[in-house]
């Protein structure tokens, strides 16, 4: 807006304080405070997909005071004060002075950059944050970069190789020095050295810089020649392999969630192989273990239990509830099972006391929320669906339930709501709304009735509600409700308590005054509002309680079972209360009856310490009795009585970041199950850090909500569930998937494969680079230590690019040590990754010894066979090139487990490609090696040497491999044999290890 006119402007030119007008479906260029919108009530709908991935529409409000003003016509001056730019996209505080009035601004008045304006023709606002100061940009930092453990270990080995490289170069230069020294007097005229240059008439040294410098040059030259030792190409191939692995993970139909049409997502590319080494899984409960699709299950109203489970569904009858608006039928989008009795009661009562209570109860459900009803068209023009959009799934479930019982929320603005009660539309003024916060754990709404009576409806968690309910009133009902609550939560249901109170005029005025003052305060507004809310939410009359079922996701118990079998410790960290957590623990088979439960609930540090010490003593006893050495293999837990540790957030406050951490860790590492309830998001991260700091074991955190972000980022591997609670967890995660049960194929199949493949690939790449360097080095010893290479420069350059690169990449992507079926059948096979079987120091040194032997064979067989013969440098170089390349590829071929046509093509193809390349290089007349390959390949000795080299070089490896596989078989080896021979005979011994059968393909 310039000079009273709106003009088009580029995003980058928008400045703070400018007035911006946005049309429908446009993207907001900066963070703006809404002044007015096309909607007369000042509502603007925005879609925040770009910010948090949630596709539901959110409502933002323009202040009533500014809504009336039209900036094109009248000039007005205002001042907006707001906080400094920060990255909290869910909070904003500020105030605006217009016409001498001070208006408070909250997060509902600001529209952030990146949102899109929907269902609103236009919106006008003042830019408050621009460019990099916008909240969207400030949130752009991205997750901290993680490095895979394999790579970290690999770097140690690379340092070792560097030391080896320096050693080789030093040997070369020292030998060169000795040679120069001993031939000092001959150098001048030696035909192959010719130190003196006579061409310019006077005698001077030609390209000879003295003893010291010659040594230095030799050293540098050998660094250049031997630098292949450091496998730079390995990093590139690893990236390529990871991309390939990620592709297959994404494509895996086992991890495709048909319900949400979401594939597996690989958001981090550098920690694929860590998936194969996980030892600890930290799981959120809500939305991760459970579906987070809330279903209204039971209600306890006025001390009477109405449960919908036993009721309507067997009649095949679902509540058909609709409302007529302007000749159109409105229906709620989701259908809810209803209790017929309660439905009847709610329909035809308003007379008796019981009916009144039911009326208030459902009114509270329909009104006391922040749901926005959206009307969605259907194919039938007379029928429209009401879609309840809201941030909390509990509220949605309750609103749908209320609608099913005939209390349909139809319209909500900042000032009023319209509820259709059994066909009668009623309008209530919303006088005040105290939003839910985690301290109060309740929310309340103050409704003004048409008859000017004012009522307060409160709903919230049982603990927080029971403390504010007037106990003297209806004590019996309270008791009955409490009994119901207890039985609900033991079923694993989420409970909420509903209460209400009639506000008298004086109470209302008192509240109103305090509320106005608090909501315009600039500093500490949240705290003030909280105080106002808790003042008014007092002495309530209990209405009843609701129970919502948080359904377990499909396959969760089985998944947890197999994770445990694989020796992975599953810790559940949840914000729910202890009873719910334990009941979910039982239903998900995390807890079993045979377990000893250790529960730690304490309110201060001392009792915490006492509890921990007692628990430690307790945990040691069964272990000592069973006389099994305390190994950390995860199996020890299974032998003694398994212990489950249940600890709550308040205790954790005293334990984390204090000296008690150590004891907790010791205790926890003895427990097979750890349940942490009532934990705050940051505590989740604290617990992950607790484990991560103290062990080298890999940790995985899985969660779906914004509260899991810190945990996901802290863990070695973070997995996000793309569920209902928005996408923050997915944004922060390294991998994202649709269902918890996909963790099983992810870890057991892909994690296992990725780890095995990459572990092998690293070792193999070390080998493949070291062998050529060693061959080059041996030759240097026979060239008066002058770093001549028999292998043509082109060939040594192409060696790691063309000759040997593709097979290792393809094998790294495609080879499978075991089939999916076997891997899922025996989760114990996952232990190979936890024990680091595919890559460790021992393997490295064994491979290096093998490399040494192979290089000796490759070099010395031709050397002796051609000693004192007419062979020229290019011919023997070609022999060395070919034999190294074929050897390296055969070595790989020997270790490949599954030969499919791609692998065949790439292995044999790269050998053929090498031969062709060598031929092409030797067909260039201006190279000194012209036609060498064709001349030598015509001799028998060439082929005999090649054959001899290949066999002699691979013999020890083959023999050792066989002995190792046969007499010290790994689990993988046995399973591989079983897989192969299972068809041929029935294995009797197999039956008893099929204790944990897992359905092969999860049905969908």
């Amino acid at each position, binding site marked *: 807006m310039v000079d009273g006119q709106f003009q088009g402007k580029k995003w980058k030119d928008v400045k703070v304080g400018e007035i911006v007008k946005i049309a429908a479906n446009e993207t907001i260029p900066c963070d703006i405070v809404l002044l007015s919108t096309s909607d007369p009530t000042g509502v603007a709908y925005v879609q925040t997909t770009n910010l948090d991935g949630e596709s539901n529409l959110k409502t933002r409000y323009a202040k009533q005071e500014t809504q009336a003003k039209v900036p094109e016509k009248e000039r007005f001056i205002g001042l907006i004060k707001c906080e400094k730019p920060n990255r909290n996209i869910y909070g904003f505080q500020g105030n605006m002075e217009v016409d001498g009035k001070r208006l408070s601004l909250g997060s509902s008045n600001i529209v952030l950059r990146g949102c899109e304006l929907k269902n609103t023709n236009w919106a006008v606002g003042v830019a408050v944050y621009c460019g990099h100061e916008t909240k969207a940009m400030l949130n752009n930092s991205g997750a901290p970069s993680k490095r895979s453990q394999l790579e970290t270990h690999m770097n140690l080995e690379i340092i070792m190789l560097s030391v080896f490289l320096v050693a080789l170069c030093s040997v070369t230069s020292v030998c060169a020095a000795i040679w120069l020294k001993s031939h000092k007097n001959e150098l001048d005229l030696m035909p192959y050295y010719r130190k003196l240059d006579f061409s310019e008439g006077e005698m001077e040294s030609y390209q000879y810089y003295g003893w010291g410098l010659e040594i230095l040059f030799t050293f540098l030259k050998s660094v250049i020649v031997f630098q292949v030792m450091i496998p730079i190409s390995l990093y590139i191939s690893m990236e390529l392999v990871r991309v390939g692995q990620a592709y297959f993970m994404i494509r895996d139909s086992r991890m495709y969630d048909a319900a949400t049409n979401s594939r597996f997502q690989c958001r981090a590319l550098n920690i694929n192989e860590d998936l194969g080494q996980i030892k600890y899984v930290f799981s959120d409960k809500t939305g991760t273990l459970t579906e987070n699709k809330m279903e209204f299950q039971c209600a306890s109203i006025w001390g009477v239990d109405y449960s919908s489970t036993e009721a309507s569904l067997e009649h095949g009858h679902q509540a058909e509830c609709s409302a007529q608006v302007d000749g159109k039928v409105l229906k709620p989008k989701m259908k809810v099972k209803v209790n017929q009795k309660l439905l009847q009661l709610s329909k035809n009562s308003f007379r008796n006391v019981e009916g009144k209570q039911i009326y208030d109860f459902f009114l509270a459900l329909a009104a006391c929320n922040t749901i926005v009803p959206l009307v969605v068209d259907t194919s039938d023009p007379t029928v429209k669906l009401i879609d309840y959009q809201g941030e909390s799934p509990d509220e949605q479930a309750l609103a749908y339930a209320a609608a099913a019982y005939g209390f349909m929320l139809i319209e909500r603005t900042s000032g009023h709501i319209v509820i259709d009660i059994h066909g009668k539309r009623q309008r209530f003024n919303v006088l005040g709304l105290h939003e839910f916060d985690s301290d109060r754990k309740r929310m309340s709404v103050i409704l003004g009735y048409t008859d000017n009576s004012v009522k307060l409806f409160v709903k919230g968690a049982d603990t927080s509600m029971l403390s504010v309910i007037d106990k003297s009133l209806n004590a019996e009902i309270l008791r009955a409700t409490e009994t119901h609550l207890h039985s609900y939560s033991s079923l694993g249901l989420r409970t909420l308590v509903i209460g209400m109170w009639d506000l008298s005029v004086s109470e209302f005025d008192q509240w109103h005054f305090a509320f106005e003052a608090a909501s315009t305060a600039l500093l500490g507004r949240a705290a003030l509002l909280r105080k106002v809310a808790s003042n008014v939410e007092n002495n309530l009359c209990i209405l009843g309680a609701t129970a919502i079922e948080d359904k377990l996701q499909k396959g969760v118990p089985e998944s947890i079972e197999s994770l445990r079998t694989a020796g992975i410790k599953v810790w559940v960290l949840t914000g729910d209360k202890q009873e719910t957590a334990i009941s979910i623990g039982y239903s998900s088979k995390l807890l079993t009856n045979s377990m000893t439960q250790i529960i730690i609930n304490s309110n201060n540090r001392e009792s915490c310490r006492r509890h921990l010490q007692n628990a430690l003593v307790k945990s040691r006893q069964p272990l000592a009795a069973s006389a099994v050495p305390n190994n950390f293999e995860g199996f020890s837990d299974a032998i003694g009585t398994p212990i489950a540790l249940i600890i709550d957030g308040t205790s954790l406050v005293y334990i984390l970041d204090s000296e008690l951490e150590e004891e907790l860790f010791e205790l926890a590492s003895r427990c097979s199950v750890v349940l942490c309830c009532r934990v705050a998001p940051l505590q989740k991260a604290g617990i992950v850090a607790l484990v991560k700091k103290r062990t080298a074991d890999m940790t995985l955190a899985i969660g779906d909500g914004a509260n899991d972000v810190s945990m996901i980022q802290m863990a070695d591997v973070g997995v996000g569930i793309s569920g209902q609670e928005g996408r923050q967890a997915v944004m922060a995660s390294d991998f994202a998937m649709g269902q918890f049960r996909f963790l099983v194929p992810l870890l057991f199949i892909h994690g296992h494969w990725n780890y095995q493949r990459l572990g092998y690939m690293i070792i193999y790449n070390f080998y493949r680079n070291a062998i050529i360097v060693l061959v080059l080095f041996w030759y240097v010893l026979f060239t008066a230590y002058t770093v*001549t290479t028999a292998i043509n420069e082109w060939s040594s350059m192409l060696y790691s690019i063309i000759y040997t690169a593709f097979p290792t990449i393809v094998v790294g992507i495609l080879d499978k040590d075991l089939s999916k079926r076997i891997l899922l059948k025996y989760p114990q096979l996952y232990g190979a990754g936890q024990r680091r079987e595919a890559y460790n120091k021992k393997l490295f040194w064994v491979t290096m010894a093998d490399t040494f032997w192979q290089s000796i064979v490759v070099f010395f067989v031709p050397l002796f066979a051609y*000693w004192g013969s007419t062979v020229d*440098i290019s011919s023997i170089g070609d022999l060395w090139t070919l034999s190294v390349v074929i050897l390296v590829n055969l070595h790989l071929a020997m270790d490949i487990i599954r030969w499919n046509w791609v692998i065949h093509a790439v292995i044999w193809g790269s050998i053929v490609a090498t031969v062709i390349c060598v031929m092409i290089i030797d067909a260039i007349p201006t190279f000194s090696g012209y036609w060498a390959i064709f001349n030598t390949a015509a001799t028998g000795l060439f082929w005999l040497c090649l054959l001899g080299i290949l066999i002699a070089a691979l013999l020890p490896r083959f023999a050792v491999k066989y002995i190792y596989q046969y007499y010290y078989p790994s689990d993988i080896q046995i399973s591989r044999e079983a897989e192969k021979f299972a068809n041929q005979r029935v294995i009797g011994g197999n039956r008893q290890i099929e204790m944990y059968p897992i359905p092969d393909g999860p049905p969908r």
Partner: protein
Amino acid sequence: MDLDSGTSSTVGARVQAIPGRPAQHGALYQFKQQNLPACKPVLTPATVIATFLLMGFIFIPLGLITLRASNSVVEIVDRYDIECIPEELRSNKLLYITDDSISKNCSRFLKVPKSMRAPIYIYYQLDNYYQNHRRYVKSRNDKQLLHGLGDNSTSSCIPLESSGDLPIVPCGLIAWSVFNDTFKFSSGSSELKVNRKNIAWKSDRNHKFGKDVYPFNFQNGPLIGGGKLDPNTPLSDQEDLIVWMRTAALPSFRKLYGRIEEDLDADDVIVVQLMNNYNAYSFGGKKKLVLSTSSWLGGKNDFFGVASLFIGTFCMLISIVFLLLHVKNPRPYGDAMYTSWNKKSSSS
């Protein structure tokens, strides 16, 4: 290297057909699900023992055959670099070789141990001569050899890129140090005819050394390194140079000098008239004259035969050891009792 042919079997991918999702059985889908048909070789005792036996059966006869071939080669080696210096000059070899006034003529008498069948190859052998020295190997210009002076960048040839402001063809240390001892052979009274043609690779003569490139300004510097070249013969016909320019891989090497195309009988005495021109004394090199017949394997070299006998025996031994081990201590394949988790639970 068919290690596992005995047990390889193609196992078709087992995929659970997921109902309700058709069109998933194409090759592409199988690829994406990593279910390509594949064969899974597993090392079983039978295959391993058989492989080692097979290796033994291949390498022992191979070793015998190559040893036989090597033994059939008759080879006469004569070191002449010391013997050709007159007694009084042996203490100062350098003086002998650098002084042009001293005659370099020398006669050697070689006794033929066994009858030698034509063609008999004549080699000169140099020991302790690093033709693979980095400075040496680089000091040449392949373009010049092919195209002559048309290509002027001879910087790779220093210190022998030019002499007296004129470029040298062929330039570089290698050409400069070309070997120039000459040999003449006679048996009894008759001179043995030595064929000096076709001693270099045909490919080199035809494509690597120019047919219209003539030596120019060669060996005109103050220091003469080796032989001179006939300035009227194109490089492609200077076969000694071509042979010499194929730099040897190892510090002890032979180069072909020519062929004697008649048979020699046992106990014949061959008289070699040689010109001992080449200076190998300055760096302690050795010069040898070699007369050798040839077999399909090349020259006389027992290494390969011995090595393959060794490999073969070793393989046989290993296969026997494995067989005994297997009989004594067999492990049923694929038996789940051996897995770590079953072992652990049974031991407790």
